[in-house]
């Protein structure tokens, strides 16, 4: 006699180690197979956009740190580009290079965390994560030398950067780059082409290119599906127009490709850091801007960067006062989650955790 079964609905989260923050998935299972998925979020909603309307333009930099808190440098950069567009300020060359350099170091740190947690989700119990964190710690130490903070850096300001790098920063950066080559090779040898990783991730949770574009997916997730769209190439900001780099593209759109694109992007970021060190010249690090900024009434700006998660943009509207009238954040993590249902339905419970890891979301940015 056949055993009678029925679908079961389970809440994964909001408190669950694999969801990388307070994120809930309401999933209906048939045995181990996923029938329905509904992502539910908002648990970390702090009203950043409303808070920004109450603070002056310089203070908002500290709010942007707390969006995607593992890549705060890049958040600072997107916001500062938007304010500079409002004001029509030209940033000094040295500041442009310092921004590009720190943004690329931050991308390395963020991708290392993405890779580490992706492998953690596969069930590697910490070892690769610690390998990734070893190098990430060194980058955070470098940030500490620049601005005194490791996570919530607030290093960039509208018009440039807050401080020039101290003299002992440059030898420390050289030493880091030297060590990183060996450390990263070790990570790559452990995980790239690793048979268990390949079997668990190849061909799982496919994202076709047309759906990726239609769902406004951006960043490594889009490039893993076969598009070469990268805002650093398409609409260069800061010093990216003088950087030589390739955009890694994969065509499979599966979990492995999303993971592979991040691994390759780290190589390109390190390449850009080295070019910044060669090209940077002495000079001022901040444009001559007043302490309290007052962009003209009616001015609007859309400051956009290629963040580690995808297209991050700030849409600012000024009313002539000291705070923006509206500060909208286009958050890549939130919009990349649009495809969760497509990616998960039909796959198994264990794949669900890995697929979420491959999207590399950050709840600070999803909920804002």
């Amino acid at each position, binding site marked *: 006699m056949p055993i009678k079964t029925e679908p079961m609905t389970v809440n994964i989260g909001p408190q669950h180690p694999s969801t990388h923050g307070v994120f809930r998935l309401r999933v209906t299972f048939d045995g181990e197979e996923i029938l329905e998925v509904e992502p539910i979020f908002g648990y970390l909603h702090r*009203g950043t956009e409303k808070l920004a309307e109450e603070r002056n333009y310089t203070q908002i930099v500290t709010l942007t740190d707390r969006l995607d808190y593992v890549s705060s440098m890049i958040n600072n950069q997107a916001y500062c580009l938007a304010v500079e567009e409002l004001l029509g300020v030209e940033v000094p060359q040295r500041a442009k290079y310092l921004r590009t350099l720190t943004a690329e170091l931050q991308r390395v740190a963020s991708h290392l965390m993405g890779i580490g947690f992706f492998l953690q989700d596969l069930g590697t119990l910490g070892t690769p994560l610690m390998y990734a964190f070893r190098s990430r710690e060194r980058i955070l130490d470098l940030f500490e030398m620049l601005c005194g903070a490791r996570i919530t850096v607030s290093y960039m300001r509208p018009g440039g950067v807050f401080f020039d790098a101290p003299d002992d920063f440059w030898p420390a950066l050289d030493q880091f780059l030297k060590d990183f080559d060996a450390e990263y090779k070790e990570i790559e040898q452990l995980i790239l082409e690793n048979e268990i990783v390949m079997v668990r991730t190849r061909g799982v949770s496919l994202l076709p290119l047309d759906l990726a*574009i239609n769902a406004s997916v951006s960043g490594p997730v889009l490039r893993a599906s076969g598009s070469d769209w990268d805002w650093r190439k398409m609409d260069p900001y800061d010093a990216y127009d003088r950087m030589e780099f390739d955009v890694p593209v994969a065509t499979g759109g599966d979990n492995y490709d999303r993971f592979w694109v991040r691994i390759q992007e780290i190589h390109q970021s390190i390449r850009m850091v080295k070019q910044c060190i060669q090209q940077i010249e002495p000079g001022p690090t901040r444009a001559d801007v007043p302490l309290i900024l007052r962009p003209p009434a009616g001015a609007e700006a859309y400051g956009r960067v290629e963040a580690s998660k995808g297209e991050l943009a700030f849409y600012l509207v000024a009313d002539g006062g000291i705070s923006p009238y509206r500060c909208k954040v286009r958050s890549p993590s939130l*919009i990349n989650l649009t495809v969760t249902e497509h990616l998960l339905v039909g796959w198994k419970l264990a794949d669900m955790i890995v697929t979420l890891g491959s999207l590399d979301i950050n709840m600070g940015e999803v909920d804002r």
Partner: protein
Amino acid sequence: MALQQLTGEDLAEKVAAGVPESVDGMVDGALRVKSQKIADVANFMKSDSGLDFNFLNSISAVDYIDHFEVVYHLTSLNKRHTAIVKTRLVGRDDLTLPSVYHLWRGADFQEREIWDLMGISFSGHPNMKRIMLWEGFEGHPLRKDYL
């Protein structure tokens, strides 16, 4: 090939020919269209081979007290150009805009967010409910009159 920003002037004639009586003027390099025509204009801008806007960057809403403005940032990944389309909704109660969900799936969470925080609902969206706040929350906190 560098990215090209199409201004309202570049777009107005084409859009007016494609969707009659939709254009409402031009502001700061953006095209302004009538609110009830927004889905038709979006459909035209996506399907017209010369414009080909296949990527919706973001949808933002701004509260100007006597009216709301909804701003669409669009990009064509094939033609490598961008555009900004704006529309106005006068009043503060029962605001509805045609949804662009069926053209760009990327509008899903953004339209829900605008309903949640700004109180503009989108007709034709299959799952129009709050996203950041919980069901039963009173008011729309990003509005200027919410204290």
